[in-house]
């Protein structure tokens, strides 16, 4: 099971890092032997201090500029909230800068207010996500979703149009660059897990609140079974809170999965995830008030990396291993 780290352009004090600091942070993570660098995504809400996260894509761009081979990803990007064409544009632009290294975990997002203030219908989020992903994929396949183009210049009262067939046969920029990998972020919906297995490059599970729906043991076990039975090849779990210096918190099977415990217990708990069949785990270290101000250092990263044996299997070319028995 590969270990990855969550990543952002904010420092431990929640203030923005400089460009050089972001680069250095990315380089430290790669040098420590982690397999990937991942960023989350939420859109801001006016006046809501807790919801002014940065756009994850420039951070990944800077990380790409400072690293050689580490995987770069989102966990998750709320695709349904944005223009799918523009998301595809950002995705192929990043893919061009770091060929083969991008993995976009996408999902509906879990915050209704982000949909409400954008004038989008929360109850239709799954449909919109599916339509958006279809559009994104058509960008990379080159299949024209629009048969007739109308060009309009100037104000609407002075518009004129010309029609032309789509440019069949000429590859677009997205086609030339090629598609990054896409993962579907979902908790336990059988339909979504089936989509993750059949229409995406993998499933991105959350260690967060979804596991409260019956607890991590039941949710992870049932979901993994559905995903693998449907032919799913790569299963990742993200939002895995970690604090190896905090007093050990128990891990009840009917609660959330977390790594807030001593190093030995962390190793043991990671072994549980491995046995459940996860191929990758994305760690979110020190996400607590107690450790505010904690900086990533080479020693700390080495300590974290040593919590579980390194897995050198190639993310980019190898299908995930079958679940451990």
């Amino acid at each position, binding site marked *: 099971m590969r270990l990855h780290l969550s990543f952002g352009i904010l420092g431990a004090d929640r203030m923005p890092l400089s460009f050089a600091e972001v680069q250095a942070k990315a380089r430290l993570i790669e040098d420590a032997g982690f397999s990937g660098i991942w960023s989350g995504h939420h859109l801001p*809400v*006016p006046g809501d201090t807790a919801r002014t996260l940065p756009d994850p*894509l*420039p951070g990944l761009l800077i990380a790409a500029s400072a690293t050689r081979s580490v995987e770069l990803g989102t966990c998750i990007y709320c695709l349904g909230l944005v223009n799918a064409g523009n998301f595809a544009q950002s995705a192929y632009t990043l893919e061009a800068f770091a060929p083969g290294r991008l993995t976009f975990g996408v999902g509906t997002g*879990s915050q209704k*207010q982000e949909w409400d203030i954008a004038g989008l219908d929360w109850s239709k989020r799954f449909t919109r996500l599916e339509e958006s992903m279809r559009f994104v994929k058509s960008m990379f396949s080159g299949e024209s979703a*629009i048969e007739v183009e109308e060009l309009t210049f100037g104000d609407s009262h002075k518009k004129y149009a010309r029609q032309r067939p789509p440019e069949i046969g000429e590859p*677009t*920029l997205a086609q030339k660059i090629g598609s990054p990998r896409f993962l579907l972020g979902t908790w336990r919906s059988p339909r979504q897990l089936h989509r993750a297995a059949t229409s995406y490059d993998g499933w991105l599970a959350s260690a967060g609140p979804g596991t*409260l729906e019956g607890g991590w043991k039941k949710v992870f076990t049932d979901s993994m079974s559905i995903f693998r039975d449907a032919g799913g090849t790569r299963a990742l779990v993200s939002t895995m809170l970690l604090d190896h210096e905090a007093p050990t918190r128990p891990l009840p099977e009917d609660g959330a999965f977390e790594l807030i415990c001593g190093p030995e217990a962390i190793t043991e708990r990671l072994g549980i995830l491995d046995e459940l069949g996860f191929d990758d785990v994305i760690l979110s270290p020190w996400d607590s008030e107690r450790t505010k101000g904690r900086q990533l250092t080479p020693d700390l990263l080495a300590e974290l990396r040593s919590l579980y044996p390194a897995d050198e299997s190639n993310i980019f070319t190898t299908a995930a291993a079958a679940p451990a028995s």
Partner: protein
Amino acid sequence: MRIGMWLPLVDSGGALLDGHAIAKRAQMIEAAGLNGAWLGDHTPIPGDVDRDLPDPLLYLAISALATSPALELGTCVYSLPLRNKYDVAQRCYTLETIAKGRFTIGLGTGSQKVEYDAAGLDWDDRFRRMTDHMAGIRAIFAGKPLGPLYRQHPALDDPGTPVVLDPAVDRGTPWAVQVGPPRFALGSWHSPRQLRRAATEYDAWLASASPGAQFGGWRKVLSESIKAYRDLGGKRAVAATVAVDFWGPHVPLKDDGVFNLFCPPTEAAERLAMLESLGFDDVILALVNRSAGQGRKGLARRYDFTAADLEQVRALLPRDDRDYHDV
């Protein structure tokens, strides 16, 4: 009059530039003594090579990292109503975080109906949507809620009962407020209402240099529009985007046509002097090579400049080193 340059997108063989090459091109613009690096924006459509563009903000982010604060970075124009306004606000404050004060985000409705159709948006609603979006973006930077703030989580909460946050609790200052906004410019042709907005609500006006015969030609549109803009108190007028081709067939400049620099450098200098005499503070140029691009499609038609090209461009006008932050 300051000169900004469009960044090239492809190399001379028509291949998309990688990150290092983009950084190099931005450095070349700065080294030539030009004032800014700019890019346009279109939302791609599956299968349509003529609409191919990379994400301009990621290109500008790379450019910011590779150059000094002397070089302004901007969009001309970024199609705001096609996007989620809060997505754009987030992109803006993230850019400001990376390189404070460098960005001028030229915004507009976009001119392509097909991009609205593809996004399931109503083309006829674009100006209302533009106004609404800008209000949302300003609210992010003002840090003021537009209504109750609530948490409603499908796993933690009953979807019907949001947890409303107590407005009396001080939750600190949103990051967007701490970072502050970039400069915003409004891209508009000759609509009096839009010019008023550009003068009173934005930091600059991005005029289009391409109003053709259907609007009365460049001289009428640009001279009338800049007068209206200045009369309303507008401070910075930017002419974008003027195509430059020193090498291809000469195209005479007709008052009732499009403004371009399809002519040798000496004549190009005279043409730019006309723009300057109209009162423009900045012109944004895009080098093209019509002959080389003939028969090519999409991005392959674009031209990759050389240092010598940029020197020629620099020589068209005396240097104007007014600080773009001040205008």
